[in-house]
């Protein structure tokens, strides 16, 4: 089959057994790859009622359909498992080479079940599959783990966890090539399985259906991409390029645990300031010709990091009130090395600082003066969280559980949706995104819908004149955008290319697999995937009552151009109802039989 590895590999770490199955062509075209395969196999393989850390949970890794084709920016691989933060659906997409290597080894889906007896790594070298001891790597960083395994195994691609994953920090991430599947604690699930790393070497040919056509398309999109305005912006300043705009022009850059939407002290964390001073070169995901990553070399501290991404500039910067870029970069490096998600980490630390300043936590509780703006405290808290030391043990549970354990007024300061700490969009002034935080299958997330750009600029794709301060007509918009982005995650295409490709993949797919799918057909697959994720969540205990915004989102933004805007409880309720209606689900958010039949997935609902 063109453009696929052709097999599904299932490994049980408890028994050491591996099973290989042939990928069916009809199945492949129904789900495409990446996100689609994850949505299917999470429902088929994982008992949704089990705890995330149960050996019955699985980790699923699936490269997008276009991974391996050189279609620019289509190198993404998705990781799936039950969320360590909310026990529901979780996925996290990354740009490391692991999926490319898997596909070359002949696998479109890797399913890892069970639990190894001792700390291990999984080695996949084409047809050879082995579980090897990683006890000598216990406590090592993600980076060192990869280096050591490469010394022993040669030219392998390594996806590894750090100490945080081993210690079951609920927002531990997986790192591959200094890129992370960051969100929802896939690293912790790996830790719960005693799985320190996955090492893959693939050497098989990937064939496309029409190589000459593909080559011409590569030439076309190469030209289009390097001449697109985003090429220079991403290349020079990375994903944080619009940070100043988010502050000055939109007033929606969450600051000091979502007190404000403007970070006045932002001078240093703006890439226009730091990139010329600290970034020595660009770093790309595999297959990307417009790299947004930067090799950031610190001066005051010792260290290098592939960053600092927009979300991290918020999480460890503005959300903690930290204005020093060196502190933010160092924090970024520590998070990557220990293997924790920067967004959740910054969310938790901002929460602690808020409690500290409001007298709900004292110095003896925290061990340090955890005031907003204290960069050293931020770094120390990262250490404590990653190693579960002192208060870090509580914070490693994430904002939701930590707030419930502290109790009382702490709950008012807890900023999360369904247990996940949100990314850098103050949704009080971006109401469609407020809905997207509620409806994302993994909790507060900007990527499942990617609707922030549409909301903030007012137009994208088929939408025009969208008003970010209005809560009208958001249900259909967010459902459409979720379907759109599910296609991107199934194909493995980076969302930063959405303005270039839109859903015009018919020619590319014809060249890749020999079947052209138009926008309508792709959107149906996207809708199918979104419904499957939701079905998994329902089986895992999802309730519409859990889809609610943090208390802070109901309070007005105090200053800046979005001053006064907030999402009322009525708007929250109405937008969610609109969304259910747009989805063809009932009032309680349960997909109807007709909808599932229409999407040909009725077999999944009990």
């Amino acid at each position: 089959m063109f453009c696929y590895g052709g097999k599904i590999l299932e490994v049980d770490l408890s028994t050491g057994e591996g099973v290989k199955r042939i990928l069916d062509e009809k199945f492949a075209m129904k789900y495409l790859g990446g996100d689609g395969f994850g949505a299917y196999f999470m429902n088929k393989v994982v008992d949704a009622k089990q705890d995330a850390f149960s050996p019955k949970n699985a980790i699923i890794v699936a490269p997008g359909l276009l991974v391996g084709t050189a279609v620019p920016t289509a190198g993404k691989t998705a990781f799936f498992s039950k969320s360590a933060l909310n026990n529901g659906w979780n996925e996290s997409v990354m740009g490391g080479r692991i999926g490319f290597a898997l596909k070359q080894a002949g696998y479109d889906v890797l399913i890892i079940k069970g639990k190894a007896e001792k700390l291990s790594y999984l080695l996949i070298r084409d047809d050879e599959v082995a579980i090897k001891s990683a006890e000598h790597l216990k406590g090592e960083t993600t980076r060192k783990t990869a280096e050591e395994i490469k010394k022993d195994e040669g030219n392998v691609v390594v996806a590894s966890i750090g100490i945080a994953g081993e210690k079951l920090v609920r927002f531990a991430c997986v790192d591959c090539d200094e890129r992370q599947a960051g969100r929802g604690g896939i690293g912790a699930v790996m830790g719960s399985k005693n799985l320190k790393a996955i090492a893959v070497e693939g050497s098989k040919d990937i064939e496309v259906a029409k190589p000459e056509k593909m080559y011409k398309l590569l030439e076309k999109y190469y030209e289009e991409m390097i001449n697109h305005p985003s090429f220079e912006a991403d290349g020079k300043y990375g994903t944080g390029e619009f940070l100043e705009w988010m502050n000055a022009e939109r007033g929606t850059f969450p600051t000091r645990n979502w007190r404000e939407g403007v970070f006045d002290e932002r001078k240093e964390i703006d890439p226009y300031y730091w990139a010329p001073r600290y970034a020595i070169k660009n770093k790309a995901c595999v297959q990307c010709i417009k790299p947004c990553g930067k090799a950031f070399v610190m001066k005051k501290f010792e260290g290098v990091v592939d960053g600092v991404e927009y979300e991290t500039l918020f999480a460890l910067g503005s959300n903690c009130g930290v204005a020093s870029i060196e502190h933010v970069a160092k924090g970024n490096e520590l998070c990557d090395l220990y293997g924790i998600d920067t967004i959740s980490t910054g969310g938790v630390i901002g929460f602690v600082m808020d409690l500290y300043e409001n007298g709900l936590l004292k110095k003896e509780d925290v061990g340090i003066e955890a005031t907003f703006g204290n960069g050293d405290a931020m770094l120390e808290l990262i250490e404590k969280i990653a190693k579960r030391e002192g208060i870090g043990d509580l914070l490693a549970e994430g904002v939701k559980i930590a707030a419930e354990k502290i109790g009382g007024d702490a709950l008012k300061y807890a900023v999360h949706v369904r247990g996940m700490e949100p990314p850098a969009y103050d949704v009080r002034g971006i109401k469609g995104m407020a809905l997207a935080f509620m409806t994302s299958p993994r909790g507060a997330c900007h990527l499942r819908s990617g609707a922030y750009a549409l909301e903030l600029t007012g137009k994208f794709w088929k939408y025009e004149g969208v008003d970010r301060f209005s809560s009208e007509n958001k249900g259909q918009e967010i459902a459409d955008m979720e379907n759109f982005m599910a296609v991107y995650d199934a194909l493995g295409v980076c969302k930063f290319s959405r303005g270039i490709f839109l859903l015009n993949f018919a020619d590319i797919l014809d060249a890749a697999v020999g079947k052209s799918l138009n926008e309508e057909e792709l959107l149906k697959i996207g809708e199918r995937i979104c419904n499957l994720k939701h079905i998994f969540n329902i089986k895992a205990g999802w309730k519409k009552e859990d889809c609610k915004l943090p208390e802070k989102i109901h309070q007005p933004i105090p200053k800046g151009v979005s001053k006064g805007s907030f999402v009322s409880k009525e708007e929250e309720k109405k937008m969610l109802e609109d969304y259910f209606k747009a989805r063809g689900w009932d009032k309680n958010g349960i997909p109807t039989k007709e909808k599932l039949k229409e999407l040909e997935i009725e077999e999944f609902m009990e």
Partner: protein
Amino acid sequence: MRVKAIAENCSGCMVCEIVCSMKHWNIINPKKSGIRIEKKSVTEDIPHICSHGKECNLECVDACKFDAMKVNDGVVYVDYENCVGCGACERACPLNAVWIFNKKAYKCDLCGGEPQCVKFCSQNALVVEV
């Protein structure tokens, strides 16, 4: 002529490896590419590619006992009729720019004068040097 690598500019995206294998073999396989990117660390992505004698003494040609490493008009290329994949060229190359995979040698042949890796490098990490 040769393709000169400027490692400081390389972002490590591997597009050069992919298009090289597509152009030469109509498939995708970085192991059959004539250029390889060593992703060494956050600050180091190092392209390895043949200098066609500019930075070496054609050690691969001397090392080959099967008349498979040939030179034509300044271009060093593999004659696949003769290559048995013994690995002598790989061992002899001082630049780490020839590789054996499945009993065949792979290296840059300059694509008939229009190197595709250079064409697809968006970071100016690969340039043609005449």
